[in-house]
């Protein structure tokens, strides 16, 4: 099912109180959140598999094993220190009575009786950055079109765009390219799994020969070309020439840190990143459906009020793929 470009965020909720879970579910529905829960013994898997998490809702209430959200927060903090955690307290929406160590784990507290602190928490930590709908929608459309052209006879399904707070590297292979204009500066990452891309090439549904000579080289080439075409189209549509002429803060850079052991990449900023997921499926089942994860990270400059959408795209009489003779 295709979804509109309305931005959502995925939150994991662990709460032993069924009443609280019901209230949280309603809250999620009303606030563009996709909430989900899991048993305590499967929680590690949650953080391994869900690469598009925005926040975690925990609770003081003890579960059947005598564990509370504070115990869980300690564990989550070890594996996902960048994820904002919020704690449901039983009596008042304050940090009173929590040890200093416990307080440092949580970005906010709330009670069931008053959800306004939870709403403020979302505004401060997840929805604090405005991503213009035409940009979000445009990136989705461009990527979907490019994937469809790069992998013949494919059905491309896109999920709702997500705001994410963590920095996990998904899959086994990723490409990364700078996105730079006078109103934004950052990166686009496209992440997927090596074997899935190999299978697509072997199926003969791409421009590369189906007989793979050098597996990793061919995988790299295909992912690079997909990235390149998406990048070019984003640039043409959103980085119009008058803005392109003056790339803001072009000398400003920050180091990018990659932790291989923990499959983690940091761009030096804590703002929520835009995350899109696409599933590529063959109409004739010649390869296993696979997922591409696209992240847009504006870590250095972000002034969307200056964004212009190119009129050229609408008015240009020469379409993609056709020769414009000079």
């Amino acid at each position, binding site marked *: 099912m295709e979804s509109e470009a309305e931005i959502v965020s995925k939150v994991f909720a662990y709460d032993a109180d069924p009443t609280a879970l019901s209230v949280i579910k309603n809250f999620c529905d009303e606030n563009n959140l996709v909430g989900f829960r899991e048993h305590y013994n499967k929680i590690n898997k949650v953080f391994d598999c869900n690469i598009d998490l925005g926040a975690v809702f925990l609770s003081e209430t003890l579960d059947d094993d005598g564990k509370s959200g504070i115990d869980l927060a300690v564990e989550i903090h070890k594996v996902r220190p960048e994820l904002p955690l919020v704690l449901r307290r039983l009596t008042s929406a304050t940090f009173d009575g929590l040890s200093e160590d416990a307080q440092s784990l949580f970005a906010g507290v709330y009670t069931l009786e008053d959800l306004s602190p939870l709403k403020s928490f979302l505004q401060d930590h997840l929805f604090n950055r405005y991503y213009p709908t035409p940009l979000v929608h445009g990136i989705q459309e461009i990527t979907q079109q490019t994937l469809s*052209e*790069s992998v013949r006879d494919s059905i491309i399904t896109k999920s709702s765009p997500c705001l994410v707070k963590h920095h996990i590297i998904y899959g086994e292979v990723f490409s990364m390219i700078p996105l730079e204009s006078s109103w934004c500066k950052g990166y686009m990452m496209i992440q997927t799994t090596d074997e899935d891309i190999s299978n697509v090439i072997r199926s003969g549904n*791409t*421009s*590369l*020969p189906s007989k793979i000579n050098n597996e990793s*080289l*061919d995988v790299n*080439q*295909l992912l*690079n*070309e997909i990235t*390149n*075409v998406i*990048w*070019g*189209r984003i*640039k*043409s549509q959103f980085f119009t*020439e008058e803005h*392109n*002429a003056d790339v803001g803060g072009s000398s400003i850079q920050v180091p990018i840190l990659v932790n291989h052991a923990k499959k983690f990449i940091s761009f030096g900023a804590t703002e929520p990143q835009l995350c899109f997921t696409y599933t590529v499926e063959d109409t004739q089942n010649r390869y296993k459906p696979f997922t591409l994860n696209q992240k847009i990270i504006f870590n250095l400059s972000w002034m969307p009020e200056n964004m212009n959408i190119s009129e*050229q795209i609408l008015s*240009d009489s*020469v*379409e*993609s*793929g*056709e*020769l*414009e*003779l*000079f």
Partner: protein
Amino acid sequence: MSKVLVVDDSATVRNEVGSFLKNNGIATVLAENGKDGLDKLKADSSIKLIISDVNMPIMDGLTMAEKVRSELGNNTVNIIMLTTESDARMKQRGKDAGVKGWIVKPFKGDAVIGAVKKLLG
């Protein structure tokens, strides 16, 4: 026999364009970047048309086009850019370097084969 030099750092594109031209009876020479393209052009006088990407490592396609005219003094070979770029200033730079045409990726062979044959002479 006149040949087309296909210059692109992407093996995907080289393969796609090369195969299409070959299937249409056109001989090709492949190069991975602008510098490689210049070397191949110098070495093969039967190249009459260049189809080149713009953004490539080592030497970009527009610099290559400029060098074809200025350094090699070759004013007869036709050059078409095949790129994701559609920026007007970039196209102007191409025009100034004697580029004959511009294709925004993806490559749709059927849409351009007539013009390619014409430019190939």
